[in-house]
C-alpha cells in the first residue's frame, strides 16, 4: 500500500487537466469528428478533454503547451499509432517514404531516387500486409497487394497515421502489417493562415511547387490544393560492372531514366448543420516516371505513367433519431487508376511491352454507434466492388486479362468501461465475404475457371488500463488475413501462373505495452512521452512467388514465420527550445521451413535493430522563428538471403537542416539528406573465395541493382497568408 501511494503521489503531481492530445480527433474512416472544435462529452473512462488553442505547424516547437501532441490519443486508445502532422515538417522536402522510414517499427525499402518505387514493412510483415487508406477509402488490393509509397503525394495530406498493430474495423480490420491512414483536414486553421504556397529545388533535379487554400468557416469549410513535384534522379553511384569479385571494372556511373513528374490536386469540403456533417472530396494524381532498370542492365526507354482519381462522400449524424447517444454514419467512394507501362526496347521485361492496367473500385459503408451505460457499441457494414483490366496495346495475346471481386464485410465492436472507466475492454469481430471471378490462364493447364468464394472471420480483443492520468497499459490480439490478389490466384496469362488453390495468408498477432505521457512539465522539461511495446505474430501460409521449372512464376503458400519484437520511443522538450525524440525497434523475424537449412533463419531484409533520433532546436530571434534540426537513422546489419549467408553491414544515415521565418509571411528551409554521402557498403564473404576477398564493395541499395542516392541538398521557400 505504501508503495502504491508513492506511485500515486508523483502521478498526481505530474498529471494535469488532460486533453485530447490528437488535435484532429477522427472517426474510424479518418474524417474529423463533428466535435473537432468543441468539447466532447467524455466517456467516464477517458481522459478529460479540454481543447485549447495550440500552435500548429513548425510553431508548435515553441508553443507553451506542455503536453506531447499525442498524449490524449496515446493514453486513451488501445492501438499503438504513429501520428505525423505534416504541417510540422514544413520547410522540409519529405515524402511518405521519408516519414515512414523514420517511424517506429517500420522498415522501408526503395528502388532509389525520389519518386521511385518504395515498399513498407511494419513490424516485420511483408509489405502487402499494410492497408493504405486515403481519407477513409481503402486502396484496392485486387491487382497487387503492395502499395507503392512513391506514388503517394504527401503534400496532399495533413495527417499520416500508422497503426502498427491492431487495425480499427473502419480501416479494413485485418492486416498483419497494420494500416496507414492518410487524411486531409478541411476548413480554416485556428491561426487563420488559409493560403500556403511552397516551392523548392534541390539535388538531382528535385523540385516542387504547391499551393493550398484552407478556407470557409467551422460550418462550411474547404481544402483546395494543387501541386507539382518532380526530379531527374540523375545521381552518381558505384558500379561493380557486374563483377563483385573483380575491381578491375569498377567505376562511378550516373543513373539515367530515373526521373519523374507528378501533378496532383485535392478538393474537399465539409458542411455541418447541428449534429450532422457531410464531407465530400475529390483527389487526383498524374505521374510519369522513367524506369531505370537494374544497374547491370540499365533501361533508357522504359516508362510508367499513372493516373489516379478518387472521389468520396461521407455523412455523419449524431443524436440520430433524436437519441442523444446514437450516431449514424454512411459513405460512398469510387476510384479509378490507370497505368501504362512501356518497354519498347525490351530493356526490362521479356520482349517489348506496352501494357495498360486499369483498376476501378466503387464502395459504400455505413455504421451506427450507441453509448449505453458502460458500453459503447459499434456496428459497421461495408461493401465494394473492384474491377481490374490489363490490355496489351501491342496487340499480342500474352497479357490481356481482367478480373472482378465483390467484397462485403460487417464489423461489430463493443467498448466496455470497467473499474470506473479506468479500464476499457473492446472485443471486436469482423466477418468478410468475397467473390472473385477468375481470368483464364493460357499457360496453366491446371487452373480452375470457377469463381472463388471466401469467408473470413477476424476476431480481436483490445484493452486499455489507465493506471494513472499519465500512464496507460494497453494491448490487443487478433486474427488477421491477407487475401490473395488476382494475379496470385489467376495469373496474368503471361508468365505468372494462377494458383486458384492458393490459401489466404492468415495469422495471429498481438501487442502489449505501456505509455507514459504526463500533462505537466518536470522543471524545464515538458512534452514528455515514453512508449514501450512488445509485439509478436505468427503468420500462416504466407504467400510468395516461386519459379516453376524455370519457366514461369506461381504464387504459393509457405509454411510461415515467427516474428517478435520490441518498440521503445521517447521524446521531450527542454526549456521550450530543444525538442528531442528517439525510438528504437528490435525485430526478430525468423523463417519456419521444412528445410533445415532455412528453418529458424532470419527473414531477409529485416534488420534486428533500428534506432532513430532527431533533435529540433527552435527559438524566436527578433520575433522570427529559427529552427535547426538534425537526425540520424542507424540500422543494424541484415541478411540478403533466406539462408543468411550474405549479410549487409550496419548503415548510418544522417540528415540536418534549418528553417527560418522571414518577414512577409515567408519561411525558408534548407536540408541535407545522407549527410555523410554514403554510397558504398561492404559485403562480407565467408568463406572467402580468395584470401584477399573477405569483403567486397557494393552500391548502397535496398534492392539489388537499384542504388540509393548520395548526399542531397534541398531548399524550400514557403509563403503563408
Amino acid at each position, binding site marked *: 500500500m505504501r508503495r502504491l501511494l508513492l506511485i500515486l503521489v508523483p502521478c498526481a503531481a505530474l498529471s494535469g487537466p488532460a486533453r485530447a492530445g490528437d488535435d484532429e480527433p477522427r472517426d474510424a474512416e479518418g474524417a474529423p469528428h463533428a466535435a473537432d472544435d468543441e468539447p466532447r462529452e467524455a466517456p467516464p473512462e477517458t481522459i478529460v478533454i479540454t481543447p485549447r488553442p495550440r500552435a500548429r505547424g513548425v510553431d508548435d516547437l515553441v508553443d507553451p503547451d506542455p503536453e506531447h501532441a499525442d498524449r490524449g490519443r496515446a493514453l486513451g486508445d488501445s492501438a499503438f499509432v504513429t501520428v505525423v502532422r505534416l504541417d510540422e515538417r514544413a520547410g522540409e522536402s519529405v515524402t511518405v517514404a521519408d516519414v515512414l522510414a523514420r517511424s517506429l517499427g517500420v522498415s522501408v525499402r526503395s528502388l532509389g531516387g525520389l519518386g521511385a518505387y518504395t*515498399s513498407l514493412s511494419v513490424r516485420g510483415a511483408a509489405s502487402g500486409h499494410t492497408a493504405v487508406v486515403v481519407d477513409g477509402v481503402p486502396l484496392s488490393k485486387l491487382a*497487387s497487394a503492395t502499395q*507503392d509509397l512513391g*506514388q503517394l503525394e504527401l503534400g496532399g495530406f495533413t495527417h499520416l497515421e500508422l497503426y502498427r498493430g491492431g487495425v480499427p474495423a473502419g480501416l479494413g480490420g485485418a492486416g498483419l502489417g497494420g494500416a496507414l491512414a492518410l487524411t486531409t483536414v478541411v476548413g480554416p486553421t485556428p491561426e487563420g493562415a488559409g493560403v500556403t504556397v511552397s516551392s523548392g529545388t534541390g539535388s538531382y533535379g528535385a523540385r516542387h511547387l504547391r499551393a493550398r487554400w484552407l478556407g470557409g468557416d467551422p460550418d462550411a469549410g474547404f481544402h483546395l490544393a494543387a501541386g507539382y513535384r518532380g526530379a531527374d534522379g540523375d545521381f552518381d553511384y558505384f558500379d561493380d*560492372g*557486374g*563483377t563483385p*569479385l*573483380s575491381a*578491375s*571494372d569498377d567505376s562511378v556511373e550516373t543513373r539515367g531514366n530515373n526521373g519523374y513528374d507528378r501533378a496532383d490536386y485535392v478538393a474537399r469540403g465539409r458542411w455541418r448543420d447541428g449534429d450532422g456533417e457531410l464531407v465530400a472530396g475529390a483527389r487526383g494524381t498524374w505521374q510519369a516516371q522513367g524506369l531505370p532498370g*537494374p544497374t*547491370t*542492365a540499365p533501361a533508357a526507354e522504359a516508362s510508367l505513367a*499513372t493516373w489516379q482519381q478518387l472521389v468520396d462522400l461521407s455523412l455523419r449524424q449524431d443524436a440520430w433519431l433524436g437519441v442523444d447517444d446514437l450516431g449514424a454514419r454512411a459513405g460512398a467512394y469510387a476510384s479509378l487508376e490507370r497505368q501504362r*507501362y512501356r*518497354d519498347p526496347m*525490351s530493356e*526490362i*521485361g*521479356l*520482349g*517489348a511491352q506496352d*501494357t495498360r492496367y486499369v*483498376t476501378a473500385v466503387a464502395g459504400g459503408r455505413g455504421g451506427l454507434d450507441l453509448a449505453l451505460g458502460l458500453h459503447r457499441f459499434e456496428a459497421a457494414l461495408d461493401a465494394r466492388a473492384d474491377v481490374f483490366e490489363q490490355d496489351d496495346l*501491342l496487340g*499480342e495475346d*500474352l497479357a490481356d486479362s481482367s478480373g472482378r471481386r465483390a467484397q462485403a464485410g460487417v464489423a461489430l465492436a463493443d467498448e466496455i468501461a470497467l473499474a470506473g472507466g479506468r479500464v476499457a475492454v473492446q472485443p471486436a469481430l469482423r466477418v468478410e465475404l468475397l467473390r472473385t471471378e477468375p481470368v483464364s490462364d493460357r499457360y496453366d493447364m*491446371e487452373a480452375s475457371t470457377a469463381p472463388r468464394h471466401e469467408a473470413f472471420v477476424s476476431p480481436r480483443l483490445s484493452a486499455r488500463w489507465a493506471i494513472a492520468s499519465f500512464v496507460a497499459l494497453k494491448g490487443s490480439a487478433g486474427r488477421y488475413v491477407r487475401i490473395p490478389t488476382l*494475379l496470385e490466384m489467376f495469373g*496474368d496469362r*503471361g*508468365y*505468372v501462373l494462377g494458383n486458384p488453390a492458393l490459401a489466404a495468408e492468415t495469422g495471429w498477432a498481438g501487442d502489449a505495452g505501456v505509455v507514459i505521457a504526463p500533462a505537466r512539465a518536470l522543471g524545464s522539461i515538458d512534452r514528455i512521452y515514453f512508449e514501450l511495446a512488445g509485439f509478436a505474430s505468427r503468420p500462416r501460409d504466407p504467400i*510468395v*512467388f516461386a*519459379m*516453376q*521449372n*524455370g*519457366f*514461369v*512464376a*506461381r504464387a504459393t503458400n509457405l509454411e510461415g514465420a515467427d516474428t517478435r519484437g520490441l518498440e521503445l520511443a521517447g521524446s521531450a522538450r527542454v526549456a521550450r527550445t530543444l525538442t528531442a525524440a528517439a525510438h528504437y525497434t528490435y525485430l526478430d523475424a525468423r523463417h519456419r*521451413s*521444412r*528445410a533445415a*537449412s*532455412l528453418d529458424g533463419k532470419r527473414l531477409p531484409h529485416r534488420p534486428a535493430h533500428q534506432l532513430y533520433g532527431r533533435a529540433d532546436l527552435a527559438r524566436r530571434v527578433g520575433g522570427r522563428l529559427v529552427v535547426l534540426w538534425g537526425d540520424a537513422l542507424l540500422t543494424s546489419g541484415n541478411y540478403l*538471403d*533466406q*539462408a543468411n*549467408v*550474405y549479410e549487409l553491414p550496419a548503415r548510418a544515415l544522417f540528415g540536418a537542416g534549418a528553417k527560418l521565418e522571414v518577414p512577409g509571411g515567408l519561411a525558408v528551409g534548407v536540408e541535407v539528406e545522407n549527410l555523410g554521402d554514403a554510397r558504398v557498403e561492404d*559485403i562480407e*564473404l565467408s*568463406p572467402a*573465395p*580468395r584470401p584477399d576477398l573477405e569483403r567486397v564493395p557494393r552500391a548502397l541499395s535496398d534492392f*539489388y541493382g537499384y542504388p540509393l542516392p548520395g548526399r542531397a541538398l534541398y531548399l524550400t521557400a514557403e509563403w503563408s497568408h
Partner: protein
Amino acid sequence: MKQHAVLFLSLSSMLLFACGDDISDGRGGTPDAGPGGADAGADVDGAPGADAGNEPGRALALGGDYNETGTTALVDVDALTVELNPVAGVVGGDPAVRRFGDRVVVVNRGFGGNVTVLDAADLSLVAQIGIPDNAQDAAIVGDTLYVAALDAAGVHVIDLSAAEPVLGDTISLAGLDDVDGVPDCNSLHAVGSQLFVSCGILDRDTFAPRGPGAIAVIDTGDDTVTTDFTLSTQNPFGRLQPYAGDLLVSTLPNFADLTEGCLERITTGAEPGSAGCFAQGSELGGFAAAYREADGELWVAVAESFSGGRVTRHDGAAWSEGSLVPAASNPTDLAVCPGGDVLVADNAPDSRGVRVLAADGSERTGEPLDVGWPEVFAPVNAMICW
C-alpha cells in the same frame, strides 16, 4: 498497380534470365572422360566412362532466388552428406554451372551479369568476367572461354590465360537471324575443336520463335563459323548435351503445351546436321528439362507440368515405365557422377533438394538432401558431379 507492373517486369525478366534452366552439367566427352570421343577440352563432369574408377564423387549444387543471392552446397555422394556454403560470393541469383577439367565455370545469368571461374580442387576464385548481355552458357577449349549470351549478336571469346581476363571479341552469329541480328543463343558444347551453338531465333518483342531453331558450328582453331543449319523444331530451350557420339537439345515451341517440342538429335563430325527428333514431347509426356547419358543409357527429367514431372531413361531400345522418383516430385535437373550415381534436383515444395539414384535406378536417399535451396523462388538447380 505499379507493383503489378514491377512484379510483371521482374518475373518477365526472371523468365528471360531463366531460359534454358535445365542447367545441364554439360558432361561431354574428353580424352579422359565419358562419351563423345575426341572432343578435347569439352566439359568433363563425372561421366562413368574411362575416369569413373567407381568413385561416387562429389557434387556441387547451386541455387538462386532469381534476385541477388545464390546458394552453394557440396554433396559427398558417397556419404550422402552436405556442406552448405563452401565458398561465398561466387553465385548469383540465377546460376548455371559447368566443369572443364580443373576449372568450374559458374554462369551468373540475368542480374548476375558475369561468368566466374573457380578452381575445381578447392573452389577458390580464378577469375570473374563481366558479361553485359545476359550470359547463358559457357564452354572452355584450351585456355579460351566461350560464352553464349541471350542478348548478344554472337558468342563472346575470353582469353583465360591473361592475368586479368576480360571480355574479348565476339564471333558474330547475327546472320542466323536476318530480322534483328540477335539469334538468341543459349547453349554451347565443344566436340573436339568444333563448338556447337544452339540459338532460338526468337521475336525480340514477344520472345516467341519465328521459325525453327538454329545451330552454328565454330572452328575454335580460328574462331570462325564453319557452318550452320536449322533444327526440325522451334525454340531449342534446353542445353546441348552429348549422347552416343551426337548431341541432344530439347525444344519447346509453345509454353502452353509442354508436349509440343521434342528431344532433337544433332550429328557431329565432318558434316554436322539435324538428325530429327530422338523423342517427341508427346512420347515423353512433357518437356525434357534435363537429359544426361549415364553408362550408355539416356536419363531424362521430364516436366509434365509446371509443377511436377518424372525421371525416365532410355536403354537404347525403349523408355522405362513410370518414374524413377516419387510421384510428388518435381525433377528439374540431372547430374551424373563418376561412380554411376545420378543426382536428381527435386523442386517440389514439400521435398526440395537433391535425390541420389544408383545406376540401377534405385534411390539411395530416402528424402532429398537439403542443399539450402531457397523457397522464395525455386532454385535453378545447377549441378555438376565429379
